[in-house]
């Protein structure tokens, strides 16, 4: 019993402690963005992972949640309505829910590629509307507001980033708990059923269109909450939040995290946001690394990071993980050698073609060298070759070890 609820106790403690340890403005911003991304990715996984609906337009509901929230904030500032800031995310959620109902009924009639294409078309339409309706969307500049409202339940001013982080963290816990519970309800289960077997579901009495539609609407609700939180965090909402790019980001993070498990998108959102925000200031090749990570996941780990972890669950339970560990460590070592080889090659190339002064020496891990000299090239190719030749037998060995363990575990039954 304690074990079952331990995650739900540990997570809030962690959320309270973290900003006390990492208290720089950027760290707070990053953690806030991570929490928002988690809600957004989990809401996306209600579609992709649980409902089998691949959407390219989920940011529409996120964006509408954001726009309505920022308008609500401005209305409160102008003393037209009274909503405490703590409840603004709920406004965003209701907005997301409303637009999901509006757009969802027609788009959930079909699943699969048709659904994906409709979502793609809708997002383009909404983006086109952003520029056509500047009085709502604020045109290119977007709509900004001031989150320091006169109304607050808690009496917190929300001027400081860390105060906003705690608000976001609170909503993160609420939204995550609700979304988790939703998977345990009849609708959540039937969404799984529709995903697994849309052919059979009508013959147990369910209208698959409506199952998808309700799932879609709820997912829009949570995306709207995330959007409302984003509006509070940045105090500005503009077209980039509603567009195809934002939808693409949430797809990437969810898939990298793993669509097959509830906690997958959490891993994905944390890792992706971290990489997305930090790589950009470390390397010019950030986009490339993210793209490679995505492709590697698709090619070799279709269930994402969560999938990789869960494959090991039975081994871990059987107490056999230590059998795998040595080979894994070897693979990690060889993998790192290959990775560093590739990394040097990529960085050298980026430096040569995209840095502002390619002829100047570049720095990598504290070592300074000239990109257009031969040693880094030779070194990187040597590393990659060495890594490759080390990896091949190790991967074979891992395969053999797995076969062995599977037999042991089945024998044990």
């Amino acid at each position, binding site marked *: 019993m304690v074990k079952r609820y331990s995650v739900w106790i540990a997570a809030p403690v962690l959320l309270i402690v973290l900003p006390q340890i990492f208290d720089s403005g950027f760290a707070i911003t990053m953690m806030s963005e991570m929490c928002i991304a988690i809600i957004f990715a989990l809401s996306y996984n209600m579609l992709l992972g649980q409902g089998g609906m691949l959407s390219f337009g989920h940011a529409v509901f996120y964006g509408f949640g954001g726009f309505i929230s920022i308008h609500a904030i401005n209305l409160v500032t102008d003393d037209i309505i009274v909503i405490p800031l703590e409840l603004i995310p709920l406004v965003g959620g209701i907005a997301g829910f409303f637009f999901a109902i509006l757009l969802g009924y027609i788009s959930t009639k079909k699943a699969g590629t*048709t659904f994906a294409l409709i979502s793609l078309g809708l997002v383009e339409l909404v983006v086109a509307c952003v520029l056509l309706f500047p009085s709502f969307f604020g045109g290119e500049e977007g709509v900004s507001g001031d989150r320091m409202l006169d109304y607050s339940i808690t009496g917190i001013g929300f001027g400081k980033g860390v105060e906003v982080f705690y608000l976001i963290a609170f909503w993160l816990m609420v939204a995550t708990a609700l979304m988790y519970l939703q998977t345990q309800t009849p609708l959540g289960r039937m969404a799984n059923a529709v995903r697994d077997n849309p052919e059979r579901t009508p013959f147990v009495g369910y209208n698959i269109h409506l199952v998808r539609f309700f799932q879609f609407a709820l997912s829009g609700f949570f995306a709207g909450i995330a959007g409302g939180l984003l509006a509070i965090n940045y105090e500005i909402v503009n077209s980039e939040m509603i567009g195809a790019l934002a939808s693409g980001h949430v797809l990437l993070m969810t898939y990298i995290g793993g669509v097959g498990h509830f906690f997958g998108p959490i891993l994905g959102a944390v890792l992706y946001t971290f990489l997305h925000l930090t790589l950009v200031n470390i390397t010019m090749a950030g986009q490339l690394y993210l*793209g490679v990570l995505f492709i590697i996941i698709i090619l070799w780990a279709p269930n994402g990071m969560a999938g990789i972890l869960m494959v090991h669950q039975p081994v871990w339970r059987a107490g056999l993980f230590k059998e795998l560990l040595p080979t894994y460590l070897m693979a990690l070592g060889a993998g790192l050698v290959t990775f560093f080889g590739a990394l040097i090659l990529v960085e050298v190339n980026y430096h040569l073609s995209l840095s502002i002064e390619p002829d100047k020496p570049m720095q990598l891990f504290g070592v300074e060298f000239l990109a257009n000299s031969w040693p880094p090239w030779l070194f990187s190719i040597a590393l990659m070759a060495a890594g490759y030749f080390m990896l091949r037998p190790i991967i074979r060995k891992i395969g053999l070890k797995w076969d062995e363990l599977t037999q042991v575990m089945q024998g044990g039954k």
Partner: protein
Amino acid sequence: MEFYVISLLNSLVFGMLLFMLSSGLTLIFGMMGVLNFAHASFYMLGAYLGYQVSVFIGFWPALVIAPILVGIIGAGIERYGLRTVHKYGHVAELLFTFGLAFMIEELILLIWGRVALNYQVPASLDFTIFKLFESDFPAYRVFMLVVSVTMFVALYLMLTRTRTGIIIQAALTHAEGVGMLGHNVPRVFMIVFGGGSALAGLAGVIGGNYLVTSPSMAILLGPIVFVVIVVGGMGSLTGALIASLLIAALQTFAVGYDYSLVDLLTLFNIELGSEPLFPDLWRIKIENTGPLLPYLLMVVMLIFRPKGIMGERES
């Protein structure tokens, strides 16, 4: 009158360029069920390779070499990438091409840099072929038309007269059956994917200098190609042709109409108050809806006729 004739000609040129792009995509979708998000990236690759080859040995060899290179790259990606994810289903395949589009753009940035290329129309085609009313009609547009029509005819002949073509046609309608007849389906897939990529590459070579060759060209043209194949009917070449021309015409001609809802109301002698509800809605002119129309068409089509104009089956 002048406006209509010129617009008609121009929409024909642009429509055929669109068709060149979408024909490959629709064939790939029809055969393999893969919605290739990276298709416009092959178009971009074609433009860049076309530029590079034409810098070395001139435009005319580039016209042949660049599409072949793109085709080989495409076939390689099918063989070593797409085939691996095939077993995980269409969603994984689609996401793979999604990631691929991302990677191709990064690689192009890496090789050719961020700045748009100075890729110009070759001197031998850079003249005015005829005068239409007062406007000059550039020879290059005629050339583009010739290339795209030639390509259409060649593709048509290939599909109806050659063995591979007939297998492809059969696979378009009865994907499962072809494998049973003992054909090497993976190889056919590779040929189709490579061929489709090559067509996109060709569109890039002749479209890159006519339009702009820059790292964002794929993103700018990508979504519209999807519209074409959806509206035309996935897997249908004729549908893609009709839809390409239709969408090009739609976008070209919408420019000519600067009426808004206010004008419509004025027609009925209704005057709008000074502060109407939804102030933006009333001022939108037809000409501004140009980019919106294709997507509207696509969504409406998907909802009411998912088969598209000429499609044989739903996606």
